[in-house]
């Protein structure tokens, strides 16, 4: 707080939230950033004010950053390397009908 004085009790730091926004023509929510807020409802307010100011979004999710379980950079090779040579997992070996969307 910028105007701290002796009468102001010490304030704990607000928790960090990760923000996901679904755009107007986006199919899924996309991580756009993170912010601090005192609780989840205020995090939604803050996300609306920080990340949808330019007409980007139609839906917002927020989640406590500490609730996100992430893969570790140390495990990158065993996690992701094995799929590197398995091109046959892509659906590129047969024609896709034109009217099948989102592939």
């Amino acid at each position, binding site marked *: 707080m910028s105007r701290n004085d002796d009468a102001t009790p010490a304030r704990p730091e607000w928790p960090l939230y990760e923000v996901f926004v679904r755009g107007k*023509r986006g*199919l899924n929510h996309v991580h756009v950033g993170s912010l601090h807020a*005192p609780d989840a409802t205020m995090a939604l*307010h*803050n996300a609306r004010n920080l990340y949808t100011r*330019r007409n980007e979004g139609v839906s917002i999710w927020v989640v406590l950053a500490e609730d996100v379980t992430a893969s570790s950079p140390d495990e990158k090779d065993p996690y992701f390397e094995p799929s590197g040579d398995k091109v046959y997992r892509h659906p590129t070996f047969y024609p896709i009908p034109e009217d099948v969307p989102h592939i």
Partner: protein
Amino acid sequence: MSGENIFTGLTEEHDGDARWAFGTGFTEALAGVDTTLPAGVDGADLAVYCQMLGDDALVQSQRLVQWVTDAPELEEEVALANIALDLLGQARLLLARAGQADGSGRDEDAFAYHRDPEHFRNVHLTEAPRGDFARAVATLLVLSSWRLAVFTRLADSADPVLAAIAAKGVNELAYHREYVVAWTLRLGDGTPYSHERLRTAVADVWPLTGELFATHPLEAALAAQGVGVDPASVRDEVHEVVTRVLTAATLPAPEPFPGQTVAGRDGEHSAHLAPLLEELQRVAREHPEATW
């Protein structure tokens, strides 16, 4: 659309907006609205009325800007700046309408930058010093509740431009109130310290609230023509809203809004307005040829 990248998907259907990474499909606020003055509407009165509503927004916007770089949290700074920008947008449309309605052809800048304090018609609540965050919450709670009630009615105004401006503003004001209600509940029902700070702020703001509901003769005349809103007619509704919010926030139920006479609407202002306008108008007055 492209399924691989949300941002590509957002821009590809809007070639004209391709310079933006994302966020497209903006609409003009008053696109397609007939700006001709309807028969039977007094243009001079309408112009003054637009200045009353526009000046409330312009002056409160300038006050809120004082939070930028100085808010308790970065997130709240952006929230308050967003509210300020919404109000500034409302002021621009209303002042532009004032220049059309009185036939002077003055643009929004002429009204904002080249009128002296005695020609501003905002209520004192909007020009009062910024104070602390609780004060901003208390001010915005009353002001956004009042303005939302008035704009909701103005959406049916006999002046199509005023109706369109009000209809656009209703969503903005509904959000302002939602935001400020969230903070009222958290401060009031938070710690004993936050409760006390908010209680003090509400008590400080309360003497300034009565003016919002004092009917100016011009407001009465325009209300009779179906153009404007008699602010006295929203007194009960606004009081009920504010009382419900403050009670839910464990604050004492407020007194009735004080009975007050018209002051700011007639250009009678506190000493706080002149320095605020000096800051707002200085650049435009020192560089009259500048464009932005």
